[in-house]
């Protein structure tokens, strides 16, 4: 399975790392999650901020879609969100940047253990998958709205 180019290069990097270097890079990624926080005063195409039953804290997904096809994500994470989930947030914001909503919807989640390492994906760290599912959820809303608008336009 090949993934979008930016995501693939991150996967390749992590797969090449020994365990300790992988941990260090995940910490660096977690630290850099702040760079992807939403900017004050900035408007986004879609915002989805909520505290889900299955997550320890509030997560906000802010999507910008340029030229009807290029996604750019910003994500807000509450203080209780786990380090691994923070790291995955940075990875996804970088790895999915510029993809279309349709392309994002098709990305399987099986790259997560390739990046994180199977040992770290375990009970009580399953929220590693959560941010991807939230990003896909926002893309789905965007696609549904687009199709509805197109359908309305065709019928009028």
């Amino acid at each position, binding site marked *: 399975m090949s993934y979008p180019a930016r995501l693939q290069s991150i996967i390749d990097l992590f797969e090449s790392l020994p365990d300790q270097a992988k*941990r*260090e890079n*995940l*910490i660096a990624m*977690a*630290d850099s999650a702040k760079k992807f926080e939403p900017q004050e005063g900035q408007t986004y195409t879609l915002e989805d901020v909520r505290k889900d*039953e*299955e*997550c*320890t*804290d509030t997560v906000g997904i802010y999507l910008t879609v340029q030229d009807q096809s290029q996604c750019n994500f910003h994500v807000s994470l509450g203080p209780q969100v*786990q*380090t*691994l989930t923070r*790291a995955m947030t940075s990875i996804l914001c970088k790895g999915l940047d510029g993809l279309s909503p349709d392309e994002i919807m098709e990305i399987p989640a099986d790259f997560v253990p390739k990046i994180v390492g199977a*040992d*770290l994906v*375990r*009970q*009580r*760290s*399953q*929220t590693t998958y*959560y941010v991807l599912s939230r990003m896909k959820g926002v893309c789905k809303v965007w696609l549904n709205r687009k199709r509805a608008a197109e359908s309305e336009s065709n019928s009028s």
Partner: protein
Amino acid sequence: MNYSYPDILVETQWVEENKNNDQIRIVESNEDVLLYDTGHLEGAVHIDWRADLQDQVQRDYIDVSGFAELCSRNGITPDTTCLFYGDKSNWWAAYALWVFRLFGHDKVKLMNGGRDKWMSEGRALTREVPQFAKTEYPVPVSRKDDEIRAFYADTLAHSNARKPLIDVRSPGEYSGEVTHMPEYPQEGVLRGGHVPGASSVPWKEAVNEDGTFKSAEELDQIYNVGCSLKPDDDIVAYCRIGERSSHTWFVLTYLLGYKNVRNYDGSWTEWGNMVRAPIERS
């Protein structure tokens, strides 16, 4: 009224003042698998509940040789006092402490309020991983599974005999309304409910807002008055995978001085998946 073993529980200030004591090894144990790497108390080693304390193939703990090796590589001797702290109000710190007790390492302490309290007080963290000279930790004669650990069969017998069983999960998990913890995804359990005869006393009732333990009087009110537990009762506590019930085991054993408390670490992920295990819902 005081805690039964007040020396076991230490405050953050005490830890600050004793962190360089070479008779003490500070141990961080967390749910967040990378949290230690983001910063920890000076001199603290990391013991991971899954990678370090559990067997990597079957669902069980490491064996006696594994425990000796774990202590050895962390510079721990039988005379070292292991001082545990961690995230989540010390769930995993209490779990690690309980596992150390399984192997007969009785010199243990817990930092009241855990990592969150330390951080809320603005105390220092470091990313420097300490290096300690390897010790010769003698291999324990046995793992004391029969003293402070309960298995499925023990718990079933306990249930049938209507002996005290404490379900420390959230009320929704106890009633069977949900099969996951609040704020967590489903972790693979097929049936909801509780062990027949178990009383619901969520772990959280034992702590204040800041994660510190409630006073001895308040704890006595919860477990003795509210739940009719007596210090000599034969008690089994369980949760989902054994960490929240380790927390309650610590409360009953060290803070209230109950003498015969066991942790059923198989907990609901075993019971709720076991074919024909009796289940009550309410």
